């Protein structure tokens, strides 16, 4: 029996660690010692998710050593982020966004993206493993216990698909964490809120409430809907829907302000980073004091002549309102869809950043897309809203989102939402994850809901080839929406024939809105259907042990959701005992 549950928030720009003692039921955030300068180790509550790939001889011997790893040959955390800003070709950033990027081989060493040939590259999985290894080291130091014997809850965006979840558990294994359980970040934020309000929870929410979690992190925005229901007189929470992966977050806001102020100034890259940092602080000042007209920003000189060499800028109230609030949270109608720029012939394969910065438009799209649970209304009506992410330390931004949402609700004859207040915006995910571990031991209230997607394998329709026309792809549902952890889906009646000794590849699709499909249902023409999204293909090779090479073996496909929270697909031999695991191919699809 383990003594703690440990929650790890593996964030796009910051990681955090929290625990809960299982015998006492108490817990807290664990600070992470990290390199803040060569040879200097300091504690911080957050570990910036950056790896700096060190050139041999760049720093004196022993300068990178951590208390738990004296021989470490790279840097993570605050120093990696700070120094990496001056050496961008050696800086690995946003590894988590690459984990969910379908057009590249996510298991290959591709980061730092576009680094010169001599820089040793690592895979997004290895980068994530490095952050986890660091957190494990910090835990061992502060608690003097091994994480191997604790229960670990690792958070992932609700929008992570089966392949990204699989890669996250692979990173955990690479970091020596054999048993982890995955938890969706917006759920973790809600758990943290439940923990922070305690018994007041039952007074604040009531049966019939629909809680909208708006989680805007440093690099991603994530939405979830959680319903408050009742069973046998007990309150229940059911996660109803999750949004798509949107690469848009608080860092984009600071960067936009910096670009706005840098116009016409001659700043070197390091000074631009200083300006971005200055913008964040000035923005916070303006949000904290609404009477303030402008906040000064000083950008230090690169050289030692500080007085006289410092560049003076100011962020004004108009900048914040025009660029930030109206740019990122414009007052739009619920029918406005996020704009997508038309792709040109030659697009780079970099991260698929959201092309529309308007978070309110993404939110409108999410609520209208989930029309199946809208109960006859034109979009899903939330009754309560929970904010998460450092961005929302600014009251003004919370108020804007609430105003826009209430406007939509009023037009659709709905009631305004109430805000669920009281959670820690930076650390809620780690805290909530640790709390979830405690909940798994039978305390408090658990959020149910199972998988937030249905999964399908593609079956090419037999039809005569027509030049220039892609044959329609039918899809067989193998895993319905809402599968609970530790459960199997029914075996669909359709059978496939696999050739022994040859790899078989299936196209694989998911849908975050189709909740009525059962295992075995066949859907026509999914490629042109907006309710479906193609995910990494799945593949398997039947070994020759199962028969002679070239022989055809009839199989059925079956899906299972593991206790960890990942999706597993297997082939079951029809009328035999053969079973083969299907692997999600994360090496990227050919475009």
């Amino acid at each position, binding site marked *: 029996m383990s003594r703690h549950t440990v929650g790890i928030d593996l964030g796009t720009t910051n990681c955090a660690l929290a625990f809960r003692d299982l015998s006492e039921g108490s817990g807290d955030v664990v600070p992470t*010692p990290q390199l*803040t*300068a*060569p*040879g*200097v*180790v*300091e*504690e911080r509550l957050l570990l910036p998710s950056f790896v700096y790939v060190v050139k041999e001889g760049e720093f*004196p*011997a*022993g*300068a990178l*050593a951590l*208390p738990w790893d004296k021989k470490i040959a790279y840097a993570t955390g605050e120093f990696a982020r700070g120094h990496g800003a*001056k050496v961008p070709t050696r800086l690995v950033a946003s590894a988590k966004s690459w984990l969910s990027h379908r057009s590249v081989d996510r298991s290959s060493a591709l980061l730092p993206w576009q680094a010169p040939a001599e820089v040793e590259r690592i895979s997004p999985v290895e980068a994530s493993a490095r952050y986890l290894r660091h957190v494990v080291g910090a835990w061992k130091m502060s608690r003097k216990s091994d994480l191997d014997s604790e229960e670990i809850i690792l958070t992932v965006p609700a929008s992570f698909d089966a392949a990204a979840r699989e890669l996250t558990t692979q990173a955990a294994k690479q970091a020596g964490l054999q048993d982890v359980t995955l938890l969706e970040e917006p759920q973790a934020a809600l758990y943290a809120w439940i923990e922070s309000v305690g018994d007041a929870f039952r007074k604040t929410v009531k049966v019939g409430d629909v809680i909208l979690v708006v989680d805007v992190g440093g690099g991603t925005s994530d939405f979830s809907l959680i319903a408050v229901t009742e069973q046998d007189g007990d309150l229940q929470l059911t996660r109803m829907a999750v949004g798509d992966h949107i690469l848009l977050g608080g860092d984009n806001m600071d960067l936009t302000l910096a670009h706005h102020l840098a116009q016409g100034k001659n700043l070197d890259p390091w000074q631009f980073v200083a300006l971005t940092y200055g913008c964040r*602080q000035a923005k916070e000042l303006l949000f904290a004091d609404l009477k303030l007209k402008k906040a*000064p920003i*000083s950008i*230090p000189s*690169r050289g*030692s*002549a*500080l*007085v*006289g060499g*410092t*560049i*003076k800028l100011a962020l004004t109230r108009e900048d914040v309102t025009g660029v930030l609030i109206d740019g990122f949270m414009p007052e739009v109608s619920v029918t406005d869809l996020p704009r997508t720029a038309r792709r040109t012939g030659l697009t780079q394969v970099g991260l698929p950043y959201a092309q529309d910065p308007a978070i309110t438009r993404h939110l409108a799209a999410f609520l209208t897309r989930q029309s199946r649970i809208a109960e006859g209304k034109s979009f899903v009506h939330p009754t309560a809203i929970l904010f998460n992410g450092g961005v929302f330390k600014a009251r003004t931004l919370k108020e804007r989102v609430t105003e826009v949402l209430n406007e939509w609700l009023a037009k659709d004859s709905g009631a305004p939402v109430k805000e669920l207040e009281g959670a820690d915006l930076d650390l809620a995910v780690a805290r909530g994850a640790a709390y979830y571990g405690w909940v798994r031991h039978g305390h408090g209230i658990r959020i149910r809901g199972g998988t937030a997607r249905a999964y399908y394998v593609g079956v090419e329709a037999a039809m005569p080839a027509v030049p220039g026309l892609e044959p329609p792809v039918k899809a067989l549902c193998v895993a319905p929406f809402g599968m609970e952890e530790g459960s199997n889906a029914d075996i669909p009646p359709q059978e496939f024939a696999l050739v022994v000794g040859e790899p078989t590849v299936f196209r694989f699709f998911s849908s975050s809105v189709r909740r009525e499909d059962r295992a075995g249902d066949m859907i026509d023409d999914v490629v042109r259907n907006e309710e479906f999204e193609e995910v990494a293909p799945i593949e398997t090779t039947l070994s020759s042990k199962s028969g002679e090479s070239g022989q055809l073996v009839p199989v059925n496909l079956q899906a299972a959701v593991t206790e960890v929270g990942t999706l597993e697909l297997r082939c079951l031999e029809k009328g035999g005992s053969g079973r083969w695991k299907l692997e999600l191919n994360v090496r990227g699809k050919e475009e």
Partner: protein
Amino acid sequence: MAWRILINAQFANEVVEGLNQAEAARTRAGLPPERVHASALTLLAAFQREGRLVDFLQQEVAGFSDEDIGAAARVVHGGCRKAFRQFFVIAPAAQENEGGPITVPSGFDAQRIRLTGNVSGQPPFKGTLKHHGWIAAEVRMPSIAETLDPRVIAPAEVELS
């Protein structure tokens, strides 16, 4: 303590003895001053790294406008304050309001309270709190790699193109 040294010869001898021992310990270990005072240099390095304090102190500022000095002071204040707050938790030595009345009891802590003005008579003293003082309630200095030379406050930066 100075008073006790003046009036108490035995105590004075103990103090001198103690100082001699400390000096001897240092010499025995053969540590150079930068090693003995490594944490002071660490603090200086952190203030330079975060808030350019050494740049600021090394510069002659007489010829610059208040505006220029003010802009630089924002860099120094913002950065050093961040580092300072990470290393120390600072609290006032006296809890009363500055400018308000304060009673100094007999047996008061002479290190935490300094008497000024008409210092005479016997405690308890009645006076006005002019400055509430500062105490480092918590000290959290970072750990520094032993292999590094603490004299390097900031390395020279060379940008390759």
